[in-house]
């Protein structure tokens, strides 16, 4: 074989391949481009589906929950009859507290609907208002005994079913047997509205009350306070320990098997299901350390364990983004390794650490499952006054209300979600702003 001939032979199969007919090539190319377009469309479709699902989810929450921020009130002219409240006339607080305010309320109702003054009518009228109405009158008198003897218009919480009806959530055309609100009740509410005795206002109860069996009295206060304590405890524990651990692993740790073990361990902990942390909290904090069940302290501790690996991971990422030249420069002027870290690296990594911390805390705020494990599912009707009191958390409150059949609770649950998402969005916005403000490129 001579070289040149052999070379020519080598390429002949390639270069002397018969050209394919133009039409074949064109058709083939068309098919390829069609596939290309199809592929691209599928990809775009996937993004649209994902974002569409997000939109549906948020729309569902908003449309269900928006109503809960409004509440209908009945305004009745209440005559604080001295004969009823303070027959002795000496304004003795104990006597005032013991008086029959239900009777006062009944009088006010009968005054509004004189034709309903029979046993059944009274019951229907009483059911129209929230069952806290008599207590409300009592509180008013105790706060201001001078009311006795006067007639003043008072705003009462409307019962949740009637409230739902006024918000258009009860369909009166449904067969009477299929709805909780009977024709007679509806007629009564309609008459109340005709008399102009219905007022609609912002639902402050939602933020000032703790949970209640009565939807119209149920609020988020206990959950908000509980969540606040838990976040505080979680922050105080997980951030210092997490940052210290990350600094050690990233800046000081020698390369050996133990440190490798710790690293693998941290990465895995960050992916352990949250409910397992709940089991840990139950076994350690409740059963071993005797922290009271349902207390924010137990919740905060458990959430801290869960958040710690997240903080370590994000802090390490922030530390890693600081270029080695900074460390070299500081070491070069005679700083000790510790001084390098505390004087130079940490301050530079601070924005990143903060951003990561906020995101970790946001996750902790939305976490539910581990809290169920440590008994935070209890019905809490009192606002906790400290971290040792039984409390609940925002997402747990959502879960609790989701179990209740009343439409009004569904509405409040969605409202609680809106509040929760509001907090989360605020936290994320802060994180994004922080990142934007301190972003620097090396």
């Amino acid at each position, binding site marked *: 074989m001579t070289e040149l001939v052999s070379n020519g032979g080598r390429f002949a199969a390639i270069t002397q391949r018969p050209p394919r007919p133009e039409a074949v090539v064109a058709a083939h190319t068309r098919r*390829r*481009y069609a596939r*290309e377009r*199809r*592929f*691209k469309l*599928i*990809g775009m*479709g*996937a*993004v649209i589906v*994902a*974002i569409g*699902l*997000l939109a*549906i*989810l948020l729309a569902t929450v908003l449309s*269900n929950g928006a109503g809960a921020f409004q509440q209908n009130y009945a305004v009745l002219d209440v005559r604080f009859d001295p004969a009823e409240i303070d027959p002795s006339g000496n304004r003795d607080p104990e006597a005032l507290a013991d008086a029959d305010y239900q009777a006062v309320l009944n009088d006010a109702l009968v005054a509004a609907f004189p034709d309903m003054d029979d046993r059944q009518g009274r019951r229907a009228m009483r059911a129209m208002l929230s069952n806290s109405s008599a207590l409300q009158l009592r509180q008013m008198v105790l706060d201001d005994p001078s009311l006795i003897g006067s007639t003043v218009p008072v705003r009462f919480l409307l019962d949740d079913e009637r409230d739902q009806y006024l918000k258009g959530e009860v369909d009166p055309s449904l067969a009477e047997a299929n709805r909780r609100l009977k024709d007679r009740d509806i007629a009564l509410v309609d008459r109340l509205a005709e008399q102009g005795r219905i007022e609609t206002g912002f639902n402050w109860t939602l933020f000032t009350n703790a949970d209640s069996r009565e939807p119209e009295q149920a609020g988020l206060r206990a959950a908000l306070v509980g969540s606040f304590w838990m976040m505080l405890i979680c922050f105080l524990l997980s951030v210092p*320990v997490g940052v*210290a*651990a990350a*600094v*050690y*692993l990233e800046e*000081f740790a020698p390369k050996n098997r133990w440190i490798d*073990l*710790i690293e*693998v361990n941290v990465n*895995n*902990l960050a*992916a*352990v*299901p*949250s*409910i*397992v942390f709940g*089991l*840990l909290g139950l076994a*350690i904090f409740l059963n071993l*350390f005797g922290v009271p069940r349902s207390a924010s302290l137990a919740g905060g501790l458990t959430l801290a*364990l869960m958040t*710690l*690996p997240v903080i370590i991971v994000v802090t390490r990422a922030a530390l890693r983004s600081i270029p080695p030249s900074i460390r070299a420069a500081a070491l070069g002027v005679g700083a*000790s390794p*510790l001084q390098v870290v505390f004087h130079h690296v940490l301050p530079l990594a601070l924005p990143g650490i903060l951003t990561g911390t906020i995101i970790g805390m946001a996750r902790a705020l*939305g*976490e*539910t*499952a581990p809290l*169920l*494990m440590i*008994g935070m*599912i209890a019905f809490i009707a009192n606002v906790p006054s400290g971290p040792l009191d039984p409390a609940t958390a925002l997402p747990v409150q*959502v*879960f609790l209300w*989701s179990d209740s059949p009343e439409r009004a609770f569904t509405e409040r*649950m969605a409202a609680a979600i809106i509040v*929760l*998402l509001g907090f*989360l969005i605020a936290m994320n916005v802060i994180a994004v702003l922080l990142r934007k403000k301190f972003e620097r490129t090396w």
Partner: protein
Amino acid sequence: MYILAIILVMAAGAFQLSRQRAWALAGGRSSALHSRPSYYGWHAALLSGGPAILLVILWFLFASSIVGWIVTAGLPEAVRSQSTEALQFFMQDVRRLAAGLPLGREATPEAIDAANAYAAAMLAGNWVFGIIGVLLAGWLGWLAYRKVDPKFRARNRVERWTDYILLSAAAVSVLITAGIVFSVLFESLRFFSMVSPIEFFFGLNWSPQTAIRADQVGSSGSFGAVPLITGTLLITFIAIFVAGPIGIMAAIWLSQYAPRRVRDVAKPLMEILAGIPTVVYGFFAALTVAPFIRSVGESLGLNVASESALAAGVVMGIMIIPFVSSLSDDAINAVPTALRDGSYGLGATKAETIQRVILPAALPGIIAGFLLAVSRAIGETMIVVMAAGLAANLTLNPLAAVTTVTVQIVTLLVGDQEFDSAKTLAAFALGLFLFGITLILNVIALYILQRFRERYD
């Protein structure tokens, strides 16, 4: 709490005094000292505050258990001879009474006595440890103060201690894992001493009885976890079936096709999905998706359970879409541009390049992402608690109601619970199983990811 404040003040005092002493000894020339004066201060503060604070914190942590033991030991024979559960219940009352919390019912005289003893022991313990702590802080602070000397290498000392403090922070993560393993393992072993592991792992029947007292009829339930595991896998499979294609295709489109402006908007929007609390997804599943699937199924003449696996699975899938898509995105971006150019240079279209070059090259990363997503789906709790059923059906029909491991853990542990009953302990056995499975998945995934990153670095 006050004790901690006092010790902190003492440590601050030690800091101040030692630093001043260092200054004084150096005669105002810091070069005469081995370390800068504040290091002498830190040395004193750490020495005086560290051990004392540690002691007090340890006491706080274990006080309740220690005092509990002491009080239990001193209880009248009649109370002590009760069953373990009753005793635990009793001690819970005692703790509440001692803390001044309302009990909700009339307390027994024994309980009140015990509560008084408990409160007294607690107070005494607080005093004893408080005083020991303060004395310790003072003594060590004094030692450190005496040690201040221009030749003393305070900086090196402080740095070494700081090193140890940081190391112990890092070790906390190991402690957490150890805590998980031991707490879950310990209770699981107790469970397996009552129920054989063979029944647990291979039994086809799951019905932990709901009898509250052990003497009630039908108290021995059956604990075959297979229906729970198949239920979990069914829902996980549905979730991955939804999230996998959508997540990967979304990642491909966003990273390869989307115009920059669209990407800048769409990507954060998708990440919002990841930030939504799971309880919200549970709400979505239970109130919107499940009824929707049910009505669609019924219009097709299918029998759909109101708590169908499909509803929970689909919503879980939505939840993990951003998870799959961001991990796929990372994997795709890790593929070197050179490969992409090589394919374009041969005249490949974008789709051909992605399908035949980029995806195969990114495959390990994508698989790792899938494994992490599966682990996430298996451990997800709230969606299934709110949208999946409680009945342990052994079925693969996505339209039927199934239950999952996490749902059962929650149902077993929420509400009245007695320790030592197989029912409660079963939750820990399930927890151990869950931890084990997710751990294995995570380890494999992280290993693949590490190898994958090394290949293209």
